[in-house]
């Protein structure tokens, strides 16, 4: 997770943090990244095209898609661990 959120990359740490948190990154990216988090089977080429047309490069999209996927999964994992802790207590 540290490698995704920190360090010099093609996107800013702030952009990756927002993608990770499923927060707004920008109007050209939000449809794509929102689908990565909640409905990945609905992602289309058009979602990538909108982001490219706004100036985002291939490596930037690679980084932000991964940050979004890892962020959503981390929230699910943390919620499940908290439930396990409560059930075990």
């Amino acid at each position: 997770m540290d490698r995704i959120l920190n360090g010099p990359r093609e996107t800013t740490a702030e952009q990756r943090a927002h993608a990770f948190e499923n927060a707004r990154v920008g109007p050209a990216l939000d449809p794509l990244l929102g689908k990565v988090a909640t409905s990945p089977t609905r992602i289309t080429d058009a979602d990538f095209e909108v982001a490219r047309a706004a100036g985002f490069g291939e490596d930037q999209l690679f980084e932000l898609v991964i940050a979004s996927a890892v962020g959503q999964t981390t929230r699910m994992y943390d919620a499940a661990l908290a439930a396990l802790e409560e059930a075990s207590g």
Partner: protein
Amino acid sequence: MRPEVLNGGYKPATKLLFAVVRLFSGRPLPDAAKLVFYRPDFYGDPSKRFTHLAMRGPSAWSVGDRELMAAVVSRANACAFCIGAHTATSEQAYADRPRVRAVLADLETAPIEDGLRATLRMVDKLTREGTVGATDMRQVLAAGVSRQQVEDALAVCAAFNITNRLADAFEFRVLDEEGFAAGAKFLLKRGYQ
């Protein structure tokens, strides 16, 4: 795959490796395997370590159980590539195709152990709904599953919730039955590292 850089943006040595694999296996490397070679410091290397530990590391769950969990998670996400890959790998790991097919057809009536059933039910709910509560976890523990086994199952669930999302976002090419069987054989021999 999309974006295009995931098709051709690899280092020359990596492209050579892909060509060698294709030459000897007669098949291109599956997209899931190619992805971890792209900028591996960002995603591929830590992903391989985490997934291999979850799927092949020490656990009271068998390899077949964990591959079955991966298949159930993938089905909950409707991820075609990962359903095919981990259904095939679970079937080979158990050497029992009917067992896996029964679980995927109807978890509640499949002839499996109560603890595994309760665990599969929990990871399915977590994946579909994004969360589970203490009541869900108590049901798993009451079925005789240890706390460590729950944590191990959650690691599998996490690994494949990431991979499923990337498979659909990056549009992994879905293989035919022979392709998934060949991939399963490789995963059982070499794991995810």
